[in-house]
């Protein structure tokens, strides 16, 4: 047996009142020490999925109607609130998109990290202080007391995101969910933060669920990628496999929309139309109104996510949900 599954999401359904079907049967598997990229346009259900895993969906209006979230062999949806709480932040931690908003403006960075150590690991104030300094060093904020005693607004955008990451890794979680952690940052900072996440993953033995709308960024960090569209996974494969042999038309079009230095000067492809609203998801394959190869069957019947037999050098499974896999392809 190779690496065990750390997290398995099975057929997860989440609706928002009154009738928005934000997540319509997502299944995912994240193995130990894997960096799993979850890619999709905004509104496709990435954040709802991760919030469900994290247990921070606003319920109501959100509701988990169906499915399992199995973490380390236990379905966390069935746990008592107190047990869920002790997993949050300690075993599964989260890094948010906009650190400026997601850090509390009224507390020093040291306190915002330290309180987790005291709560989850039962450290004393002085132990927590020592460990906080260590963590700040790990994320490249320097192990001195200056940052410890700073308020979020006194830090730059990049430093804030590092502080956010410090908070996430403070209790040595086995899974970190990074929800568009670089989107609010400028390009040079993006690179630095990606490098940092990669380095931390290696040294701390974590798995990462990396959520992004940007396949280009996911390519740099993930080893496995799931593509999500209108609340459903449409393709899942190892990174190389997905980039070399995309099988879903949506994935293919996403790949074509990544800027490529070699094709500089030419017009960038974009996908016509937009992600359907969660309250009016098209029938059949939700992508059919935007799909260049769609036929009648696509609007009538929803294609299941099934393994395909692909090229020789395939490692792991390659799953795709399309009626025309291997039969028809975009020129």
């Amino acid at each position, binding site marked *: 047996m190779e690496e065990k599954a750390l997290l398995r999401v099975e057929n997860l359904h989440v609706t928002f009142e009154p009738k928005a079907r934000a997540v319509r049967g997502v299944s995912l598997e994240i193995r130990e020490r894997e960096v799993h990229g979850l890619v999709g346009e905004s509104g496709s259900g990435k954040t709802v999925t991760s919030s469900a895993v994290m247990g921070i969906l606003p319920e109501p209006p959100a509701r988990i109607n169906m499915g399992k979230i199995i973490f380390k062999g236990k379905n966390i949806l069935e746990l008592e609130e107190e047990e869920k709480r002790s997993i949050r932040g300690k075993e599964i931690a989260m890094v948010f998109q*906009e650190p400026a908003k997601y850090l*509390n403006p009224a*507390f020093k960075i040291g306190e915002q990290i330290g309180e987790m150590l005291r709560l989850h690991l039962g450290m004393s104030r002085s132990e927590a202080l020592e460990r906080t300094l260590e963590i700040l060093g790990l994320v490249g904020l320097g192990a001195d007391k200056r940052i410890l005693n700073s308020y979020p607004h*006194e830090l730059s955008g990049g430093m804030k995101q590092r502080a956010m990451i410090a908070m996430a890794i403070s209790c040595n979680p086995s899974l970190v969910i990074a929800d568009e952690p670089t989107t609010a940052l400028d390009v040079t900072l993006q690179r630095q933060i990606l490098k940092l996440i990669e380095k931390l993953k290696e040294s701390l033995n974590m798995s990462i669920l990396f959520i992004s709308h940007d396949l280009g960024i996911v390519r740099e960090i993930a080893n496995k990628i799931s593509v999500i569209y209108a609340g459903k996974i449409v393709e899942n494969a190892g990174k190389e496999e997905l980039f070399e042999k995309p099988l879903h038309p949506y994935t293919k079009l996403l790949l074509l929309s990544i800027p490529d230095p070699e094709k500089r000067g030419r017009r960038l492809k974009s996908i016509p139309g937009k992600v359907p609203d969660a309250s009016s998801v098209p029938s059949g394959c939700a992508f059919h109104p935007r799909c260049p190869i769609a036929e009648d069957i696509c609007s009538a019947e929803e294609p299941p996510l099934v393994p395909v037999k692909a090229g020789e050098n395939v490692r792991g499974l390659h799953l795709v949900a399309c009626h025309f896999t291997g039969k028809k392809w975009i020129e």
Partner: protein
Amino acid sequence: MKLFIFLVKRFLRLIITIFLVSTIIFFVIRVIPGDPAAVIAGIDATDEDIEAIRAKLGIDKPLALQYTEWLQRVAIFDFGKSMITDQPVTKLIMKRFPVTLTLAFFGILFGVIIAIPLGVISAVKRWSLWDYLGMAMSQLGMAIPSFWLGIILLLIFAVQFHLFPLFGFGGIKYYILPSLSLGFARAAVILRLTRASMVEELSKEYIVTAKAKGLTERMIKYKHALKNALLPVITVTGIQFGYMLGGAIIIEQVFSLPGLGRLFLTGIYQRDFTLIQGGVVFVAIIFSLINFAVDVMYSLLNPKIRIQ
């Protein structure tokens, strides 16, 4: 250095405020009909008598001269002598001020004790029994005039149950009922603000972070949200306290407390120019000082303000 500049700026602002207030009140009371000399002389007095008194009071001099003299005296905090009783205005005010200060202090204390916990609970448990209770209370607090509440409190606790003295002036027990009647209206305002502020903070993104960190509900609400929510509450409470230090004319009347409000009211009846002028400037100074104290407190609690 920043602190020094801050203090100097604040001091200059205080000076300007005092100057403006002194000027405005000086002219305003002289526009109001009524002559202090006539009040002092009584109804039988002849025109000569009144003229003599005017000369003695110095209000026969040209207005410009009176004004410059007044400003000079304000500059050294000498508000002159009462035109009616001939006692120094500063002394009259200082004799009454402790009464008003005590009343304001307990008033705001009652207000805060009722309003902040109830406001926080209302926000945390929205649309619960507590919330309805809080909303009902703040509606009542705003609608009920404090003198009416004062009278009702007297009827119940002084007349019926003899728990508190009916009137008079002495120890703390004389302040409880008037402070309650004053504080109730303050509580109404503070309660609404606390609730609104807390509701807003609970919907902020950092609350999601706090949840994702696995903090307990209690830590999320009473640590992370509350500290942010209290900032505007502190400002408003401070300003309310400042208002109350100007004296509570009606409540002092209802409970026959010898506070600033009654002193100033008597001054106005008797056209005691010096007393009114001095009183208004005094209140302006106190109000400015309270504002300053509130700002300092706010900056201590709000890290974002401190560096500016």
